[in-house]
């Protein structure tokens, strides 16, 4: 979730006609947004069981990023990405203990440096970290689900704000395709299982999904480059999620992204390498 909103890959800017009075560095938009979500959620509903746990997740994330960046890139890496990872962990991980917050952040950040193919990390860090924690420590860790109220207004505010920001970052199509796919699949599930359609739609109206659709699936570093490819991948995420839901997997969206995201990245990397080889051959010939 974190990285890519922090440092989105934007197409070259058109020549600037006039200088705006106030311009925000794109790297700060996502951190600012997620901070707003956190503050709004906490001040209205007290979503954080303790400030200390969230702080622990953020500090662990940033510290580890700085250390690993220094070791492997020989520079101080900009902390915005790690901040988003930490804050996402702080919001999404629910545990009465402290250690899962630090551990989840540490796994998330370290995964970026370990799980690389041709210099690109293939898992969204917080998606990897949270999936790992849910799988490895279910007796201690759950994810944000029923917490954070069930009221419409905060969600509408997040939807509007999130949409504007994602639009500005030119990744709204990812969120849009996912939401449309989810809703279509929800009705399909309802038809297949006989469950009320409202119960199938319900998850996407909850807080966990807001972080998922605005931060995780749109992460520039762990999504494929082409717009068409992004649309296809996010549709496949929704499709796999639906299949997992039919098997009653509670954290279906996390696991769907965990499986589809890296597979798409690997295919893209493989295609890139083939193109590169073909290019070399062409030049050589």
């Amino acid at each position, binding site marked *: 979730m974190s990285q890519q909103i922090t440092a989105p890959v934007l197409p070259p800017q058109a020549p600037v006609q006039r200088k705006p009075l106030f311009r925000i560095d794109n790297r700060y938009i996502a951190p600012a947004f997620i901070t707003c979500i956190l503050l709004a959620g906490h001040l209205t509903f007290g979503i954080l069981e303790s400030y200390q746990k969230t702080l622990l997740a953020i500090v662990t994330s940033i510290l580890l990023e700085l250390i690993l960046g220094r070791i492997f890139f020989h520079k101080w890496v900009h902390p915005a990405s790690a901040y988003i990872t930490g804050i996402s962990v702080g919001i999404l991980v629910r545990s009465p*203990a402290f250690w899962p917050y630090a551990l989840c952040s540490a796994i998330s950040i370290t995964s970026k440096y*370990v799980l690389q193919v041709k210099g690109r990390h293939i898992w969204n860090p917080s998606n990897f970290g949270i999936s790992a924690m*849910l799988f490895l420590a*279910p*007796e201690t860790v759950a994810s944000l*689900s029923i917490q954070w*109220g*069930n*009221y419409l207004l905060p969600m509408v505010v997040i939807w509007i704000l999130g949409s504007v920001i994602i639009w500005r970052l030119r990744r709204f199509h990812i969120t849009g395709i996912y939401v449309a796919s989810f809703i279509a699949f929800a009705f399909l599930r309802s038809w297949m299982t006989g469950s009320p359609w409202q119960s199938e739609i319900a998850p996407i109206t909850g807080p966990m999904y807001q972080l998922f659709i605005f931060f995780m699936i749109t992460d520039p570093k762990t999504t494929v480059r082409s717009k068409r490819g992004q649309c296809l991948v996010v549709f496949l995420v929704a499709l796999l999620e639906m299949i997992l839901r039919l098997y*009653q997997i509670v954290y279906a969206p996390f696991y769907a992204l965990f499986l589809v995201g890296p597979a798409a990245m690997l295919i893209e990397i493989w295609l890139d390498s083939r193109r590169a080889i073909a290019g070399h051959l062409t030049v050589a010939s």
Partner: protein
Amino acid sequence: MTGNRIARIVLFLFFIALLATPFAMKRISAGRDADHSKADAKTALARHGFYLREVSHAAGINFVHQSPKLDPRLDPIMPEVASMGASVSIVDFDHDGWPDIYVTNSAIGSKNALYRNMHDGTFKDVASELGIADVNQSGTGVSMGAVWGDYDNDGYEDLFLIKWGRPELFHNDQGHGFTRVTEQAGLPAWVNANTAIWFDYDGDGLLDLFVGGYYSEDIDLWHLTTTRIMPESFEYAKNGGRKYLFHNLGNGKFEEVSTRVGIDSRSWALAAAAADLRGSGHPDLFVSNDYGVSELYFNDGKRFREVGEETGVGFAPKSGMNAAFGDILNQGKFSVYVSNISEDGILIQGNNLWVPKEGTAGDTLQYQNLARDFGVELGGWSFGAQFGDLNNDGTLDLYLTNGYISLDRNRSYWYDFSKVAGGNSSIIGDAKNWPAFEGRSLSGYQTKRVWLNDGAGEFVDVAQAIGATDTYDGRSVALVDLWNRGVLDVVVANQNGPLLLYKNTVAPDNQWIEFELEGTASNRSAIGAEVTLFWNGQQQVQCVSGGSGFAAQNDRRLHFGLGKNPHIEKAVIRWPSGKQQTIDTPAANQLHKLKEPA
């Protein structure tokens, strides 16, 4: 090998270590928290100082609780909406010096039972002949719990019946029968409540009654006009039943004063308990709410002030289902235990053990949740819990029952539950939007917790080792010395399950002392009276309760374990009237009957 390559190898090993950490934490936790071995009685006695043996049938008790069957429109989720009603309360209704047991039933037409203690190890159900059995008739709702208190100070405990439906007050006619006095008392026609407690909030010597609504009181669960009866939120719901505080006017009538005295809440109350937490001389009120935060009301004798958030107990919303007080560190201070839900990988709320913060007291009292530190955090879908010294070693232990809905062992409703529970209020608030249960379990067949207190801040679960091995859907727990032996026995009421009597056998070298109090200027039940026992350089405070735990009431007699070779210095009794009485060097291994001095 280049430096970068070495760094990569180190990083990889570090990553593997991170992924292995949960396993290490699990091993550490398993080693510390529990004795899962199933020991025989002799071994349990040697290792833990006591063991429990389930003796209900031998004692002549064959009570099986029946859940309510509500409006047919709720059929798809009936197991969930009809998941409460099993309760147990202890009372010596006939004043013969032997505790009796009252249990509720919850199907229309089912009968409640009053088990008279026959003094020979057996019990006899006398509810029908005394007129308090057939209380679940069609059109009047069904029982959810019962609390006993002598509201007219005639020396006999009267019965308040908590119901989804018409609440009932029965006057105890000197142990020979009960007279229904609901209308004369001025109680409301319909309340969907799961908790009530007797306490004398204004210190006038007359017991008052707090009743906490769960479903809104304008809902008749058997004849719904709408299916929009569910909580609007799973953590911030404010559409539950109203709260009532019935002030005892002393002439058999009660006046409802909740709003006037500062209690105005529509949280979904499931448990309540009262004790003087600040040493103010007035009982404070703790309310555990489902779908929300707990509420703590400081009482100045005339008005209540809700201080949940400022004291720390009312900030993080969970699914509160229990309220029990215990002086777990023998410091003369009450901690509060609130049970919640924990289901591996889905919802880890953790139970709360609210311990007074060092250096805070009186109006600045604050609590911190030390459930994890003390090892009493995870108890599954937890319901009733009570503190009591089960092995007479001088520290209060904790008995917790749990388990929500046990149907098909192999199919779980958790997926559908979590799917809907996180959704928008317009979806979760309407029962028709909930997927059908279809015979699935929801946190069913859970093992119980019996946490032994080592006195130094750690509790160890020994339930399996000492014989608390049932896996019924436990709701209500009451502790009582059933046979006047100087040990605490355990009575557990199970939803759709049998009433269990766990007879306790304790290592004989651990000693004990018990107190039975009778108020004169204070209410005659002495509810709210505190006994602080000083022995072997330590102290422990206990309070006579008018209801605690979940839908439960312990014996009014106070039981203290003393450990080996105790030297008892004194017992200090603080009566609800404010009078203080000191008994020097009371003898161990005795029940002391004390009357409030003039």
